[in-house]
Structures are given as structure tokens and as C-alpha cells.
């Protein structure tokens, strides 16, 4: 899993306006301050989670503008609702809000992600993928192509299967975490994930020529 993270899951660096390190802060402390109406404390939480939130929205919606809207809406909703957060996984709580914001976007715009992906592919310079430091530019380019094909495949899935697949295989969440985010049972998570993976696998097999050779699925004889 290629994720860049500077801090541990509970640590923060809080800076003054000049950017100097003042002190580390516990996430729970920031949540408590946010619940008291401290918007600057909440913005520390925003800075920590915005990459995860935006990436989830981006993969669900397949469109950078819609993803930005959903991300913004999610953080505004989260700030307004933070008094009702009673503990547990803040990440799961936040991702549930952004998932709902994405469903709202899908409902309002009645947009199928594959259509917006067509628009995105027309402007390759819009690609904002992050390169891992350890990989070469060539490897990075191949991964970008992979990302685009996967996004096409994700767009062909029903929304609820797409969400579960992204949370599991892109965000690396456990079944229990996924159940908490999506507010369904473990059994439902399991069956949705099974169907989603099978469908995406079939898509990648049928459209193998789209994938860089190194990524093409290889199977033995049936």
C-alpha cells in the first residue's frame, strides 16, 4: 500500500501562523476543542484527513471537481455535527460523512463516473497522481495508466459495491471498519466485496489490452 504519512495516527504538529512547531496534540484533544467551537483545532483534523477523504471521494466519483465539492461538503457537515461525535474511530465517522456526501453528489448530478472519466482523460495534464519516491518515472507512468483503467472499472460497479471495494483494497480498511463506515452488517460487507472484486476482475480480463503488460491478469488454464 503506497501511502505517505508523516505522523502516527494520533499525533499532530500544531504550528503557529509562522509554521514553527509549538507542541504535539492528541487527536482526542483536537476533537474536544472542535466540539467547543474551536475552528482552528478542527482545521488541524482537516489537514490530517483531507488526503484520505479526497482520495475516497475521487475514486467513488471519478471526477476531481465533484470530489472537491464532496470533500468540502463533508468537512462542513463534520464540523457542524462534531458535537454529536461520542468517541470511537473518528476516521470511520468522518469517512461515513464523506461517503454520504458522495452519494448526494451522485444523486444530484445523476452522473456516472465513467462519463466524467472520459472528460478527465481528454486532459491528461490534469492528472494529479502522487509519485512514490522509490519508483522511477517510468514505473510511475505505468501506475498512472493502471489508475485510469481501474477507475474505468470502478465506474462500472454499483455505488455500494464500489465504496466497499475502495475502502477495502485502496484504503486498506478491515471488514469491521468498513461496516462502521457504511453502516451495514459484516455479512453485507463480505458479500458486496466478493461481488465487487469478481466484477472488477472480469472487467480487467475483458479489457486486458488497456492495462500495461506488467499489470495484466495472468491465470492458469480453467
Amino acid at each position, binding site marked *: *500500500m*503506497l*501511502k*505517505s504519512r508523516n505522523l502516527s495516527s494520533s499525533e499532530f504538529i500544531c504550528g503557529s501562523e509562522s509554521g514553527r512547531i509549538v507542541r504535539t496534540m492528541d487527536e482526542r484533544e483536537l476533537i474536544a476543542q472542535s466540539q467547543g467551537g474551536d*475552528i482552528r483545532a*478542527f*482545521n488541524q483534523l*482537516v*489537514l490530517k484527513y*483531507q*488526503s484520505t*477523504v*479526497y*482520495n475516497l471521494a*475521487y*475514486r467513488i466519483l471519478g471526477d*476531481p471537481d465533484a470530489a*472537491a465539492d464532496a*470533500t*468540502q461538503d463533508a*468537512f*462542513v457537515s463534520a*464540523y*457542524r455535527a462534531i458535537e454529536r461525535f461520542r468517541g470511537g474511530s473518528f476516521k470511520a465517522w468522518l469517512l461515513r460523512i464523506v461517503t454520504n456526501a458522495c452519494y448526494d453528489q451522485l444523486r444530484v448530478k445523476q452522473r456516472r463516473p465513467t462519463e466524467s472519466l472520459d472528460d478527465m482523460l481528454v486532459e491528461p495534464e490534469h492528472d*494529479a*497522481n*502522487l*509519485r*512514490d519516491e522509490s519508483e522511477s518515472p517510468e514505473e*510511475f507512468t505505468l*501506475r*498512472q495508466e*493502471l*489508475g485510469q483503467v*481501474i477507475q474505468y472499472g470502478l465506474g462500472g460497479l454499483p455505488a455500494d459495491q464500489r465504496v466497499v*471495494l475502495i475502502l*477495502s*483494497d*485502496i484504503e*486498506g480498511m478491515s*471488514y469491521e471498519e468498513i461496516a462502521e463506515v457504511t453502516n451495514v452488517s459484516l455479512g453485507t460487507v*463480505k*458479500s458486496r*466485496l*466478493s461481488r465487487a*472484486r*469478481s466484477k*472488477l*476482475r472480469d472487467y*480487467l*480480463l475483458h479489457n486486458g489490452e488497456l492495462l500495461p503488460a506488467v*499489470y495484466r*491478469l*495472468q*491465470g*492458469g*488454464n*480453467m
Partner: protein
Amino acid sequence: MALLTKDIHKTTKEDLSAYLDGELSAKDAAAVKQHLAACGACAWEKQTLEQTRRLLAQVPRVAVPRSFALREAQVRAPQKAGFFAPARTLYLRGVTAVVGVLLSAILLGDAWLRPALMPAAAPVPASVTFDAQAVQATEVTSMTLKAAPAETPMPEATAVRAPAPSEGTPLPEPTTAPAVAGAASPAVEEGRGGGPEATPEVAVNGYGAREQGETHAPLWADLRLWRAAEGVLGALFVTLLGVTLAGWRKTARGM
């Protein structure tokens, strides 16, 4: 045997994802592992699913296009989907005001019209009876006038006969008049007979003669309509006022 094999394939395929994620119980995981060793088709399923899972893990992260840190103004702005959005609040207040004005008009109209039609509470029956009798008398007169053509020949005949005995001229006229009066009196009596019957109905009504079933009574004079309008508008006004005030308080709290 074939059926059993099909069930195992189906079950294995359903469990493969969870098996790859380590989310199966030890017993179920062992069953899947055992079957995979013996079944090429299911082994292929597992292999391709595993590759798909690995590919998903290699999908690149995208950079956030900008900071999503919140500004005070964003948070204070009312929610788009909120019931108490400014536009809706204004509309609500406008509707409440209009309903309030209508209700006031109805109540004022009720208060104004009632004394105009009912001069006094106690003497109502007497005065109305008087009016009713006057009405009846007018009707009787019109009835009499209608009957007149039939009796016209008589006065003429009497008048014709009258000039002949010149000394007796005044006499036939008085005879005719009483005859006419006599013809009229039964009608009057009939009218009077109807009068007392009509009186109580008119007195009870207060606004008009609708209870008598007169089709020409105006709609605005119907007491039931007034009461119904007051009831409906009153209930509507109270409800709208409550909702408006609740919205006012919520806006004041800065939500």
C-alpha cells in the same frame, strides 16, 4: 454427487474474498484451502482475485487540489438543504403575515356584520316579526293586484249600473270596495297565518333567511361559512406562527 460439487464451488467462490482477507473462521478457511488444492477452476478464481486485489493496492494516490481548511464564513452560512434557509424563512414569514391579515379581516367582518343585521338581541323576534309581517303584507298586496283583473268586470258593471240610478251611485262603490276588501282579506288572513310561522325561523338565524330555504340568500350571510373560515384560518395561522418563531430562534442561535 454433481450437485454437491456445484455447491462447494459456489460456496468457495463466495468465501474466496474473505479467505484472501483473512476474515474467515479457521474451520471455513481450512475447507476452502482443501478445495482449492483439488479444484483448478476455483484455484484460478483465487489467483485472479488476488491479482485484482494487488492491482487496487497499487493505484496511485491523488494530490488534494487545495486545502479544505474551513473558514468561519463557510461554517456560519446556512445549510443549503436546511429547512430554515433564508429564502424559505422569508417566504414562511410572508405567508404567516398574509394568513394573519385574512384572519383579522374575517374576524372583523364577523364582528361588524352581526350587529348590522341583528339590531338588538332581546327584541329580535318582535322587530323581525314586524318586518316579516310587512313582507307578507307586501306579498298579499301583490297577490291582490294579481287577482284584480278578474274582479275588474264587477266594479265596471257596478259602475255601469251606478250611473243609472244617480241617487244610488255612491252605494255600489262601497259595495264593491268591501267586496274587493273581502276578496283581499282571506288572502291577508292567509298571509298572517304564514307570518307567525315564519317569525321564529328568521329570529334564530340572525344573518338571513337561509333556514327557510330561500335560494336567493347571499353566501356571505351564511353563519356556518364564517365559523368554518375562522376555524381554518385560525388553525393555519397558529401553526405557521409556531413554525416561524421556531425558525427565528434557530437562526438566532447561529445554526
